[in-house]
């Protein structure tokens, strides 16, 4: 009987002693992922343009829209500030910018992966692409996304070398993702901090 009890106790331990970390200790700050085209020469570009709106994609297609106003402007300005500090000049869309930058906010969309050379259908039809002729970009490297809760995607597109066939290559992308706060301002602050971190960990983005 004693032996039986001991083994019973042992088996209980076996299944109950699997100790997992207290994930509440994590900061919940957004994860900042950046990826670049290793063939891109970032010093070959001098100008850039970024729209003053942010694309918004969610699980509810009818809710897909663009973010305008102060919230969008804060994020757009963060990108502008970083690009300017790296030596690039902001120009109007009509002034033939070398680089196009686009911001997309994604909320509660499932996981997706893009493999080269491919066209990512997820952005088809979004009016933001019409800034450079309504052609979706392609990725020269594999990119995986997790849209479980919320992501801000920053894409840098080579418009200078698009050519007559409108080959819009994404030469740099950042995914700032994680759990969203119920407080909008917190999400915006996290997005701005994420944009700054994305540039910090991408020192190769520079004019000279």
């Amino acid at each position, binding site marked *: 009987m004693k*032996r039986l009890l001991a083994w019973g106790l042992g088996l209980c331990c076996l299944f109950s*002693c*699997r100790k997992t970390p207290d*994930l509440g200790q994590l900061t919940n700050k957004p*994860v900042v*992922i950046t990826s670049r*085209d290793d063939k891109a020469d970032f010093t070959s570009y001098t100008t850039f343009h970024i729209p003053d709106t942010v694309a918004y994609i969610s699980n509810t297609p009818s809710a897909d829209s663009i973010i305008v106003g102060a919230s969008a402007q804060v994020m757009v300005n963060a990108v502008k500030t970083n690009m300017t500090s790296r030596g690039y000049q902001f120009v109007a869309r009509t002034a033939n910018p070398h680089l196009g930058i686009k911001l997309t906010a994604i909320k509660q969309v499932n996981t997706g992966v893009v493999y080269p050379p491919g066209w990512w259908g997820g952005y088809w039809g979004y009016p933001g692409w019409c800034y450079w002729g309504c052609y979706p970009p392609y990725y020269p490297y594999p990119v995986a996304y997790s849209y*479980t809760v919320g992501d801000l995607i920053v894409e840098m597109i080579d418009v200078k070398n698009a050519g007559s066939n409108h080959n819009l290559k994404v030469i740099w992308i950042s995914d700032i993702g*994680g*759990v969203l706060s119920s407080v909008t301002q917190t999400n915006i602050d996290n997005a701005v901090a994420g944009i700054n971190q994305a540039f910090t960990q991408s020192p190769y983005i520079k004019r000279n």
Partner: protein
Amino acid sequence: MKTKIIFIISIALLIASNSKAQSSSLYHNMFGIAWEIGFPVSNNDFLSKTSTAGGKLEYRHFIKENLSVGGFLNWRSYYEYFPTATYENQDKTQAVTTDMYRYIYNLPMGANVHYYFKGGKMIQPFVGLGLGAQYSEQTIYYNIFLTEDKNWGFLIRPEAGFILNVKDEWGILLGGSYGYSTNKNDALGIKSLGDVNVQIGFVFRN
């Protein structure tokens, strides 16, 4: 933790000092259950924190007075928190910045053989060797995401220790072991798994 271990060992020695002499020749079978403290000795770049979340179950069948064969099943959870940092791939084309928990769950199992030395009335020293397989999970938790891999590897597990004889039917097990397994995880740069374990527990025998 250190105080707790010293207390347990003191109690064990006290009990053993009042017990009568035992000999392994009296026994045919022995069942063991022990709590284990683990120290990672490989992949310390991935994780190096000591774990107290482990244990083992084992069975030994005596085929000679000083020789037993049997089987074992252990379990252990290792984890460690890493503050926010930036990690780059080899060609520096990709980078990720986050804080994270790194976690390894091991489930070694296999057959064992033990040789027992003449240790006197109260103490029965032994050395042993375990061979088998190890199931392992390696996970990184960051924000709401996780990256996980599960794999199996060949396991070798030498050990040494002694049994403090308390009664005919049971004793206290004290020992240590080194576990090496061939579990691999290319994504996390793990080529094998290795840890040193200290164990304290009970044996029941007939």
